[in-house]
């Protein structure tokens, strides 16, 4: 009984292992550092078909092909930049998850910083203006406190009862 159970479980494990292996494409890299580069590239390249997945995530036909292509070019000794350029030539800037910095995307890249600076400038001017207004007000008040007009002095004297 025990033996049967063992055979059954080992069979099941083998089957599940096979199922697992067949859904993931495996590559033999000629250099160990290629593997890390391969995974990095698949992360930053976007699947043209599935819009919000990168090549590593997607199991669509086109992603499988593009992964194969990345692998092939890497084994040919091409650099990451060359591989990325190859993809952009065919699929456009869309294929990059991180948009390039060029005149179309300047607003995208520097817009937030611009808005931040603008907001800061507005804040500073408002604060400075408020403050200078307040000190100006304080000054005039101070002056009027220091120097009573003749009329005011008279009224004060009257209240204090030291009318001469």
């Amino acid at each position: 009984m025990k033996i049967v159970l063992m055979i059954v479980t080992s069979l099941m494990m083998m089957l599940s292992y096979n199922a697992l292996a067949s859904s993931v494409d495996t590559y033999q890299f000629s250099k160990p550092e290629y593997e890390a580069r391969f995974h990095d590239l698949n992360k930053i390249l976007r699947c043209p078909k599935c819009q919000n997945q990168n090549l590593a995530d997607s199991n669509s036909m086109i992603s499988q092909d593009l992964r194969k292509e990345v692998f092939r070019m890497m084994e040919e000794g091409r650099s990451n930049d060359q591989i990325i350029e190859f993809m952009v030539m065919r699929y456009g800037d869309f294929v990059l998850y991180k948009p390039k910095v060029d005149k179309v995307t300047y607003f995208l890249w520097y817009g937030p910083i611009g808005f931040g600076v603008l907001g800061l400038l507005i804040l500073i001017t408002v604060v400075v203006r408020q403050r200078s207004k307040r000190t100006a007000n304080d000054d005039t008040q101070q002056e009027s406190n220091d120097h009573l007009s003749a009329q005011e002095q008279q009224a004060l004297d009257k209240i204090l009862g030291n009318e001469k």
Partner: protein
Amino acid sequence: MKRFVLFLPLILFIGLGAFLYKGLFLNPKAMPSALEGQPVPQFKLLTVTQGDRVVTKADLVGDYYLLNVWATWCAACKAEHPYLLDIARSGVPIYGINYKDDLDAASQWLSHYKDPYQFSAFDVNGQLGLNLGVYGAPETFLVDHQGIIRLRYAGVVDTRSWKVKFMPLIEDIKREMAESKA
């Protein structure tokens, strides 16, 4: 002036709102093609129906022609097929690219549904498709007399898209050809 400044945030808000509202109705799947304005890439492939014949870029001839990417696994290609037959009948040469398909299934498809293509290049591992920036089927390219891709259209070519997308460009190509001759 001071009053105007007070309205500035509202104006900005309305502007942003209009911009984003418009964005709601854009088709996110409509991608600009990197290959429009580029020449058709080189290739060397067998065909689906013509046995040993090897076709290359030099076999694509015509004042203007269509390159149509199709496959038997592609359901939308079936819907597109009658339109392609109509277009071929109207005298526009169509070259097929049989994309990642099975040879028997593909030749059966052509004999069963009729063949609108001058020939169908048998792109079994998708290399030509990849060089064309194809990411699915059907896709159709309009190529001009100089072998430059003028339009890449992803999706089913029907009467409407033919009229709206293809016809104006074909008129342009005809005009350019007339001008270059004159």
